């Protein structure tokens, strides 16, 4: 049985998700841009890089570049959604919307978790569109079980990456500094990971960064399940651990940073 405060806190999470959905679906331009951006990236990368690298060897299995890069596109769309969500927290602080929300029974924890859930839901919608495009345009083979498995993994990846950006957001004081930090970070973690190419092809200088970047493990886990149908146990444990760790860290940092609004 939930205490009444816990029930209200859960309702608060639901209300924050509801608001995010209203904001997203209430703006046609946002919908079109969110749908088009990953698809455009997918078409560009898949057509240009697949000519340079028609086949890729992944853990002893030879796959087409389009099959190889599709999980990377999922992670990339999560990156952009998470970045957008963390920016929106800053905007809401600046516009006093955060003050309005935190003057209601919605508390810091509920606000942050609601934002992360909303970001996850939007990223999952994008993922399904990417899959649809992969299957219909590029004839990528995909079983229903693998589709569901990848979506489940993608949910965890969304939590990790949203938590990561929210933590960064909570640690930076100025909006401008955050935008610059987030842009640099996004580019570095995008290219210093196995999103677009196999890990062994990452430039030597970036390998250390790739090793500590959570995005590397996220794209490895999704790709492993998508191409091989399983995720190594250690990697799976790491993904779950990262999801828990970043959720706790982001909520804690947010509560500390915005304890007073």
């Amino acid at each position, binding site marked *: 049985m939930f205490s009444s*405060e816990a029930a*209200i*806190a859960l*309702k*608060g999470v*639901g*209300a924050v998700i*509801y*608001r995010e959905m*209203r*904001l997203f679906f*209430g*703006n046609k331009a946002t919908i079109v841009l969110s749908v088009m951006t990953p698809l455009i990236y997918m078409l560009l990368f898949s057509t240009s890089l697949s000519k340079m690298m028609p086949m890729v060897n992944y853990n002893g299995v030879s796959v087409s570049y389009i099959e190889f890069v599709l999980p990377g596109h999922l992670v990339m769309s999560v990156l952009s959604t998470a970045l957008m969500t963390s920016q929106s927290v800053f905007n809401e602080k600046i*516009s*006093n*919307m955060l*003050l*309005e*929300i*935190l*003057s*209601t*029974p*919605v*508390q810091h924890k509920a606000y942050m978790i609601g934002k992360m859930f909303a970001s996850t839901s939007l990223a999952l919608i994008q993922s399904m569109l990417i899959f649809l495009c992969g299957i219909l345009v590029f004839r990528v083979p995909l079983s229903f079980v693998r589709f569901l498995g990848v979506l489940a993994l993608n949910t965890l990846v969304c939590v990790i990456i949203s938590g990561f950006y929210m933590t960064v957001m909570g640690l930076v004081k100025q909006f401008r500094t955050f935008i610059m930090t987030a842009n640099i970070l996004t580019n570095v973690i995008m290219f210093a990971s196995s999103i677009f190419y196999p890990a062994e092809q990452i430039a030597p200088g970036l390998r250390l960064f790739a090793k500590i970047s959570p995005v590397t493990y996220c794209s490895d886990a999704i790709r492993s399940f998508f191409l091989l149908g399983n995720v190594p146990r250690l990697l799976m444990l790491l993904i779950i651990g990262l999801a828990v760790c970043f959720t706790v860290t982001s909520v804690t940092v947010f509560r500390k940073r915005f*304890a*007073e*609004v």
Partner: protein
Amino acid sequence: MLEICELVKTYPNGTQALRGLSFSVEPGEVFGILGPNGAGKTTLLKLMVGVLTPTSGWISLDGVNPQNSPISFRKLLGVVHQFGSFDLTLSIWDNLNIYGAFHGLPKHETSRRINHLLERLDLVAKKHEPIENLSGGQRRKVQIARALLHRPKFLFLDEPTTGVDVYSRKQIWDIVREEASPAPYIIFTSHNVDEAEKQCDRVLIINQGTSIALDTPQRLIDSIIGHRIEIRFEGQPADGLEQTLEANPLVYSAEIHNSTLRLRVEAPSKCLPQILECCSQHGIAATSVVTRSASLEDVLLKSTGRELN
């Protein structure tokens, strides 16, 4: 009851916004907080709604403390912040509907309350209009509707009628009194002293984070200032006129600016003949005399020693 005890707020940069405020507000009371810019009004309001944490001291709304039970505490509140914010691209209806969800109201109750409040605020025709298309006054009304949606017991209003026309101001006050819970606690800050004088049961005047005065508007006016008399005169007054006038127990103060003598007095009908007699003895002849009751604005100017912005 709303109780505030020895409330101190020091910001991390060392600014002492509040320096030990204590007061209580009774059920059904309209309680005004007045003071010049930077006096600590908004800080006090933010502490009362629990979005700031006191450095020391405590706040309690019907025995509920914002630090121990933040959710129960905020369920009791309706708040109109000074710089209200909305989801501008969403309609009035969507904005209010989202707030219903934040307060955990059932959907049908939210819809009923939105329709009712918008009708009372003359906004029904605009309910599907995005907030960004509304005027400043209409946005203020939506803010009021949002604060009243869940019939709060404690209503905190920070400058609630700024940018609102006279008709809407009356409409807002009527609705605020009728649409909160029965016998609501209404706490508001304002720079509009006339409004405070008219609406408040009691007024707290603060300056530099400390309490200067707390009483009903009328008692504050009576006890602090009395009445004001302005006498325009011809001629050059002899030395010592002000001092002679101030020696009268019914005269609080006397000042000469150019050809005008300004006095603050008690019981003007009693002391005016004595004042005019004294003027004549000091070689000046009054050309006009204006007597007016002191207002809350006078109280503020006197007690804070600066203009109210």
